[in-house]
């Protein structure tokens, strides 16, 4: 026998969303097919692999990196990523002296074309409230230790600019291809809550 009843009702938020969606559809305020198309786009086409390609290109092409830091919107569009919530982009670079981390204290502003839709914790009040006042404490909870001699620079992106962190390229990746490098780049490293660990020796190429 299964421990859980097979007919457990959906959670409250799920029921609320279903009710809202069917009501909006009934009133002809939304087209359910359009809603499905939006969800499918962000589930299968647009996500943090896009941002990882931008990062890997910047690591391997100094001229691209210079363009990216000077005009991120244009440089990101070179790789084919642009559109909603990426209209006005800024890329901020992690260095030996600075560790950047991005938040939207107002709600959930996030660079969709490069990172997709934000994770739940990014939209949650505890992250938004605490990462501005105690970024080092929050980073520690993500397993990210920033040394005292490095500046933690918080970017509160609740205006019209959208931010992508250019993480530091890990040691031991000399000679790696752009594709191999892109595979190392995590979503959280481009939000700034994580860094990219040095790959195990012999991991690639």
């Amino acid at each position, binding site marked *: 026998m299964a421990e859980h009843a097979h007919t457990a009702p959906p959670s409250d938020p799920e029921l609320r969303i279903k009710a809202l969606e069917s009501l909006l559809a009934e009133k*002809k*305020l*939304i*087209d359910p*097919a*359009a809603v*499905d*198309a*939006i969800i499918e*786009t962000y589930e299968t086409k*647009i996500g943090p692999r896009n941002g990882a390609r931008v990062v890997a290109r910047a690591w391997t092409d100094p001229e691209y990196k210079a363009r990216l830091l000077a005009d991120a919107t244009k440089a990101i569009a070179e790789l084919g990523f*642009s*559109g*909603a*919530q*990426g*209209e*006005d982009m800024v890329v901020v670079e992690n260095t030996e002296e600075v560790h950047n981390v991005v938040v939207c*204290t*107002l709600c959930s502003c996030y660079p*969709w074309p490069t990172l997709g839709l934000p994770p739940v914790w990014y939209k949650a009040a505890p992250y938004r409230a605490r990462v*501005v*006042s105690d*970024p*080092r404490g929050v980073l520690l909870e993500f397993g990210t230790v920033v040394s*005292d*001699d*490095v*500046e*933690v*620079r*918080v*970017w*509160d*992106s*609740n*205006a*019209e*600019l959208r931010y992508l962190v250019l993480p530091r390229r890990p040691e031991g990746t000399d000679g790696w291809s752009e594709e191999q490098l892109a595979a190392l780049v995590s979503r959280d490293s481009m939000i700034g809550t994580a860094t990219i660990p040095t790959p195990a020796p012999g991991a690639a190429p």
Partner: protein
Amino acid sequence: MPVITKDLVSVLINTGGSTRVAKPVAPRFRVGDRVLVRTLNPEHHTRLPRYARGKRGTVEHDHGVFVFPDTSAHDEGEKPQHVYTVRFVARELWGPSAPERDTLRLDLWDDYLDPAP
């Protein structure tokens, strides 16, 4: 308001809609200026976080002219104006227990700012 149909989805996602305004509006501040964030407590929509009100910072970048959300959100006009990245030291915002080195950047519209006395 027109309903977004399935055919429109990819167009909307791929083009987006910047709130940047191509109008020559004079900036009130220059990079390097010291600014004091106004203490405002509007009942309506604002992009001015409470933690920054009454705090001092330095203009680090001028991003150009954008629609002002505090008015446009209420159909009171675009009121286009400059948006700046303002740099704050963590101690200005959070007091002496914040690490000396740490900072915060926040993008603010002209109407949120006064010159720091």
